[in-house]
């Protein structure tokens, strides 16, 4: 075809072809909007019921001045579930930080490609174990064979055991984000350090880890967020029923924000007056806000190291 023949020919394509393109674009945009609707529904349903719960309280001091989390007697002591959540996620990061960061350093700095190809998928399998299974493991293995051996006085349900299991469950997450950030450190930094006479240990600790620190901190924060949101391990291993007195010892059972919701939903110890589910949404709202805050912070740090290199 001679170039001249193009004169006057529209390059826009046939109208039906254009209509189809527009329709597809719209359909895709609607699909993308669904996720926004989901978020709006989450926030709306949490706030609506949480507000209803707060208004139904005769005395707002029931949220802190009572002697524990006892929904049936309308004692909603937030300290109880906050402290339990902090203890369990605290124990869990004591486990997941050395395991996750150690594994990440090995995979990124020491392991040869063959070893990495074998080990990484196994770590991913560990990350894919359902949390209800880890809960069972905590109750029937960690509690009798680890916790009770070291602390014979520990209760059969205790926060320490749940915390250890949550730590194991979340260590692949820690390892994966940490390894990403370690591998993002440019090789030129390591080579410069080797060139100055430093060896692996000094290079890793004084050059690579500091260069990757924002990613490691992000891993830490996102792991804590995951630990706070973990439900099944805690519900199975750390406490049996829907109410608990205030408990600050990791060797005793207690209720976290998540297990308080799960137990209330199961109907144990639900308040007899009013809407038992309203209080559950109030706790859900607190949980949502805490984890959202941590996730935004962690995400920001992850993007910081991605931008840096």
């Amino acid at each position, binding site marked *: 075809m001679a170039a001249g023949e193009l004169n006057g020919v529209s390059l826009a394509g046939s109208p039906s072809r254009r209509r189809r393109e527009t329709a597809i674009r719209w359909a895709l945009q609607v699909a993308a909007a669904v996720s926004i609707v989901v978020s709006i529904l989450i926030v709306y349903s949490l706030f609506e019921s949480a507000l209803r719960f707060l208004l139904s309280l005769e005395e707002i001091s029931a949220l802190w001045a009572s002697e524990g989390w006892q929904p049936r007697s309308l004692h909603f002591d937030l300290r109880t579930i906050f402290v339990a959540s902090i203890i369990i996620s605290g124990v869990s990061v004591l486990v997941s930080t050395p395991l996750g960061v150690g594994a990440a350093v090995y995979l990124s700095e020491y392991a040869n490609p063959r070893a990495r190809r074998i080990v990484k998928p196994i770590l991913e399998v560990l990350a894919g174990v359902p949390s209800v299974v880890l809960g069972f493991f905590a109750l029937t293995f960690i509690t009798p064979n680890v916790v009770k051996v070291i602390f014979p006085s520990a209760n059969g349900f205790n926060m320490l055991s749940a915390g250890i299991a949550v730590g194991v469950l979340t260590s692949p997450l820690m390892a994966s984000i940490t390894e990403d950030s370690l591998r993002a450190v440019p090789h030129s930094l390591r080579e410069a350090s080797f060139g100055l006479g430093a060896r*692996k240990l000094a290079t890793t600790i004084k050059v690579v880890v500091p260069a990757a620190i924002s990613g490691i901190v992000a891993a830490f924060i996102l792991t804590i967020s995951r630990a706070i949101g973990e439900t099944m391990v805690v519900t199975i291993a750390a406490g049996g029923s829907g109410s608990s007195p205030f408990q600050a010892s990791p060797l005793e059972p207690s209720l976290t924000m998540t297990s308080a919701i799960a137990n209330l939903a199961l109907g144990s110890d639900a308040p007899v007056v009013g809407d038992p589910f309203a209080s559950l949404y109030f706790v859900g709202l607190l949980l949502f806000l805490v984890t959202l805050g941590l996730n935004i912070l962690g995400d920001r740090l992850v993007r910081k190291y991605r931008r840096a290199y």
Partner: protein
Amino acid sequence: MAAVDVPLGTALQRRGQSNLGERVFEIATLASLVIALGFLILLIVQILQGALPLLGDRGIGFVTDKLSPRVARTGLNQAIIGSLQIALITVVVAFPLGIATAIFLEEYASDTWFTRIVDVNIRNLAGVPSIVFGLLGFAIFVRLLEPVTGGSTALAGGLTLALLALPIVVITSAEAIRAVPLSLREGGFGLGGTRWQITRKLVLPNALPGILTGTILALARAIGETAPLLVIGAATFLTIDASLLGGLTDRFTALPVIVFHWSKQPSREFVDAAAPAAILVLMLFTLTLNAVAIWLRNRYEKRKA
């Protein structure tokens, strides 16, 4: 300069002195890896020990029989069907929605406020604790949409877990689509293809292995989730028959819910034998899906390299 006079071999000596520290550090990092994996092995051994005697006794009956309050007669029939129903709904709802969102974000969207909100929103949704999705599901699917779902039914549970899986599908699919080289698209446009033709005929076929990996992982996650189902009100015991498609608006239960329920039984028999056996069946599902996903990705990465 004095440093020039250092005899050869000095550096080697220093190296000999602190080799211990180097070795200890390497072994310590290796140890943390081994400990993490050791937990996985311990867990599998523990579960096999409890499960195998019971499975040997009961054989296939443990999978095909219906739930019973007696260990000697109980089976996982309704729980397996419930988990399959959840998987089915997740596939039907979350996969198309998630992949469409990913295509929109990667291929169609320009940098508008809408795109930015969708993007930030997806990343935040992925971090929302699963039990919060349960609260959402209860408010929307169980209460608000009761005329459609029929209350605490398999449909309500499946839709809830589909929403939970959605952000995972979007994030992993978007990554796979992003990895398709730009030159491929440019070639397509050069031939006069429309955006959709290029997406469908060039981008998606190339991103398919990555998309499959992500969606399979999301499916494994949905099958293993327990907490949202407890909030939704999944049954811990059922006497009715379950049927895959006919029973979508009936009361339901699922494998992880049964694992949870049996783990909390006062009877040792349930905790020591029935619960591990149910875990074994559950993990057969989730681990198989995980293994397939990882295998797919490794195969794909090798081909790219």
